[in-house]
């Protein structure tokens, strides 16, 4: 069950450097423009060097930024293992939107740990939740740049947010580097169409 203190609770997880902060900024800024109070918590600092990162975005909330356990309405994961790592933050009736493109941590590249099979991660998540899984990195590449993966996922989650699509799209245009606007708009729309 999601919290009464907030209208929509979103957890965004990923790997430092993937653009989780831009994703939460686009959403947070849009929500404020639609007159919601917003509270967000971000990972800055040490973990940004390729570590596991997680952001909380609470739309329509004027208390703290940390979403209670099993309180999130949606878990947006930029990386498969990072979806499973934060599944405890998602409400039982919440939805997972995830990128299936794996980023191997050094523990895996140096052979100290194994990276699980992505399909079995998705299957594991499906046991308990509705899961929308697709390769957002490939979609971004199709749109023009792998870097736009975060915006593909913002497009996908836009189907669930209590925010108008135009408001989000305007923020995308405003917040990405000017040269990449077309790519990012395309990325957003591709992501949006991934959810029926």
């Amino acid at each position, binding site marked *: 069950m999601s919290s009464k203190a907030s209208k929509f609770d979103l957890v965004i997880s990923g790997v430092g450097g993937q653009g989780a902060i831009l994703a939460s900024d686009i959403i947070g800024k849009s929500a404020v423009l639609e007159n919601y109070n917003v509270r967000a918590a971000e990972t800055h600092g040490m973990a940004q060097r390729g570590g596991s990162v997680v952001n909380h975005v609470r739309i329509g909330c004027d208390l703290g930024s940390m979403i209670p356990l099993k309180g999130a309405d949606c878990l947006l994961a930029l990386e498969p293992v*990072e979806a499973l790592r934060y599944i405890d933050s998602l409400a039982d009736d919440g939805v997972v939107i995830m990128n299936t493109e794996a980023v191997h941590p050094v523990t895996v590249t140096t052979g100290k740990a194994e990276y699980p099979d992505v399909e079995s991660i998705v299957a594991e998540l499906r046991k308990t939740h509705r899961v929308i899984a697709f390769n957002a990195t490939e979609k971004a590449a199709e749109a023009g740049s792998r870097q736009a993966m975060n915006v593909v996922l913002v497009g996908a989650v836009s189907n669930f947010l209590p925010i108008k699509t135009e408001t989000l799209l305007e923020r995308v245009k405003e917040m990405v580097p000017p040269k990449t606007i077309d790519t990012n708009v395309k990325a957003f729309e591709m992501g949006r169409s991934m959810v029926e």
Partner: protein
Amino acid sequence: MNTREYMLGNVAIARGIVEGGGRVISGYPGTPSSEIVDTLSKMKERDFYVEWSVNEKVAMEVATGAAMTGVRSVVTMKHVGLNVAADPLMTLSYMGVKGGMVVIVADDPGCHSSQNEQDTRKYSEFSLMPCLDPSTPQEAKDMIPYAFELSEKFELPVIFRPTTRISHGKADIELGEITEHRVQAKFEKDTSRWVMVPSNAVVRHPHLLSIQDGIREELEISPWNELTIKEDSKIGVIAAGIASVYAKEAIENLGVSASYLKIGAYPVPEGLIKKMYEQVDTVLVIEELEPIVEDRCKIIAKDMESSVKIIGKTDGTVPRVGELNVDHCVKALADVFEIESGLPEIKEIEMELPPRPPAMCAGCSHRATYYAMKKVFGKNAVFPSDIGCYTLGIQNGTVDTTLCMGASIPVASGIYHSGEKQPICCSIGDSTFFHTGMNGLLNAVYNKANITVAILDNRITAMTGHQPNPGMGLTSTGEVTKEINLEQLCHGLGAEFVEVVDSFDVKATIEAFKRAKDYEGTSVIISKQPCIIYARRTGVRLTPFKVDHDKCVGCRMCVNLGCPAIEFDKETKKSTINTTCTGCGLCAEVCKFDAIKEVQK
């Protein structure tokens, strides 16, 4: 006009400094405080002075000097920075200020990016300076102008203590007016105030104590404390700082009725606490880190011979370590109300997930230096280290100790003087060397420590978000200034063996380390190569590398460097270099089979 903006807590704090008329702002970077000075430094129009100082003690003293002249000043740092600045702090409270001075110290409950989780509110008790403890980014911004005024009223600096969730939280912020307050700086000579010799100090100490009641009364009625009495309940909740919003959400979620006191300023509001005691028989105190409010509550209850029961950290109901959250508060409240918490059951994730610790970036120059260092000194050598991106070398076996900033060289000296037989090579970053490393080197040379010091000069303060330092020839605002020459500086500190190498020239670096190791006495290697992340931001592009799979024998030599760009395919037993390669060339240097080459354009 819409004055509501979505911003980072630290950006809101910077805005608060502008609204409050801060004139001189100094700081030393440290997560989660750095973006305050970063934001002020990047502002295009500025009617204030801002600097990155070389360490927190220096920063505190710069802000003190400014406040002596009557202008408003701010110093920023992370919690452990206040240990470095504790010396000026403790006497500054005797001396006091003329212009308002705010000491911003960001705490990091849960050690997200820190070596400990000390509680700055203890320094407030210790120094007798009042402390403001925001519960939201909005309050954080609003507290700054208030803090300037409070500070001027009592001629005492005010400590302002955000935590990670405030500083690195984002929220919609209602902007305020920028004050008209302008004071012409004027240093007025007054030895009784500004010269803390014993005869003046013994006068100022009782003065400091005498103003405490006034401060408490002023804070008692401040907007930062808030009391709601519930006449239908015998239970009260007292929650401080950010824990107050968690507690509020928990009360709402559980649907219980409790009197509620939010505390946002110290010394604590004794009057409000006493009022709560008149209504309730049990009080649950919720605060992050140390039981400061809790202890005060107990003392107040004892003084008024109240039988109210105070529950909190001492009895284990509220955790004393780490960050708090809504779930902790729900659990504590459920315990006190003797009801079901209704907290969800959390199942263990059945699949084993690979840990994802932070790692040095692909092409980080520190990796190359560490490789050369380890090659020369061997894995049995002792490698004391310091704090910075290079601490991530813990994965490479070249970080044996990390205590606090600047400790690497003295710790190495101590290990040497104890009679340790293994060779000793310590590592320290450029910013850390300027911060407190210099004294350590001076001491090592002076006391004849036979050690090698590697200064990992990546030309920037990387870990905290790429702030300039004295070695760069740039100030915080990007103005060109004297570039401090590390080599000359080391010579100036007495070191006779000082060699500068290019970190990416692995062969030359190895040779230099060999000479340094053989040298009797304190030898210094300055390994120089800009942080690749910063270099790329300024347009530098090196040619990436790739593995020739015909030549790769799967020996894993390159993989063991721990570069995130190198992956190993278990099936084919060959290394591959992915798109994140930045072209440092270290792996090509390491490969014995000549299998790694620059990508041909």
